[in-house]
């Protein structure tokens, strides 16, 4: 199943192979922060995550000559980071099992249960406090609002933070996230759902 790299990826891969610093800078600008975020999923501190990214980068340089483009460049980069971080987490016996790393409790609801009618009511499970309309769209994209979102993402469990960052900030497809992080489609969707639901709650608080 040969895949052909996008022209942009092919250009970057060629650049990295010949040691072009502009290609290096382009890759870091685009994916550096995301790589750190993924590393933080598996290790306990930011400092260790930075070491992981350095180690992963050496792996990238070692492997770039043999990179065949069966996946996109970004999927390949993030797989290397994720695998390096996992190995590091296991080696240091510092990481918690993946499932304990803050996927949240399995039934953590998207919306506070108090906002729905109880079982004794005529329409149990229907809104008792439905969402109110938000401030006009101009405010939605204002710098301050975006800061509210950034802060909420910072507060998410690391796996959720990585998934929403890759999907909604960096624009990865769900398939790319599943490949890079070794998640099932369902698992990825659950993590994304929790993360987006939390961000919506933060926006609701800010915008109503």
């Amino acid at each position: 199943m040969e895949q052909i790299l996008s022209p942009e990826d092919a250009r970057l891969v060629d650049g990295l192979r010949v040691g072009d610093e502009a290609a290096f800078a382009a890759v870091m600008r685009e994916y550096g922060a995301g790589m750190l975020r993924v590393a933080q999923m598996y290790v306990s501190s930011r400092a260790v995550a930075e070491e992981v990214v350095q180690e992963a980068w050496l792996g990238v340089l070692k492997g770039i000559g043999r990179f065949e483009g069966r996946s996109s460049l970004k999927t390949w980069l993030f797989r290397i980071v994720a695998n390096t971080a996992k190995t590091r987490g296991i080696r240091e016996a510092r990481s918690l099992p993946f499932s304990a790393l803050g996927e949240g409790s399995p039934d953590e609801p998207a919306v506070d249960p108090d906002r729905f009618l109880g079982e004794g009511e005529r329409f149990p499970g229907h809104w008792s406090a439905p969402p109110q309309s938000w401030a006009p769209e101009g405010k939605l994209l204002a710098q301050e609002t975006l800061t509210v979102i950034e802060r909420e993402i910072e507060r998410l469990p690391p796996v959720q933070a990585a998934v929403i960052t890759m999907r909604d900030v960096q624009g990865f497809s769900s398939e790319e996230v599943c490949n890079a992080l070794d998640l099932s489609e369902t698992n990825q969707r659950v993590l994304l759902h929790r993360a987006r639901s939390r961000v919506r709650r933060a926006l609701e608080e800010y915008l109503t």
Partner: protein
Amino acid sequence: MRLARELACRDIVELVTAYLEDGLSAADRERFEEHLVFCDGCDRYLEQMRLTITATNHVPVEDFPPELEQSLLEAFRGWRS
């Protein structure tokens, strides 16, 4: 995923992502959309999830720490030579 009975709003808010990601069966999708027709609260909720995604799309990609970039760049230069 196959949904058993009539959907309550409490169920809808948990299905929004599956709906937006095209993860519901045709029948469940129809059920979901039927609920929205008569429920303003859920209609607004779905709209707010869409707005949440749009706004998150506009969050700038975080800066990469300059010291880390510098040390990766050095590794890159060292590897090339």
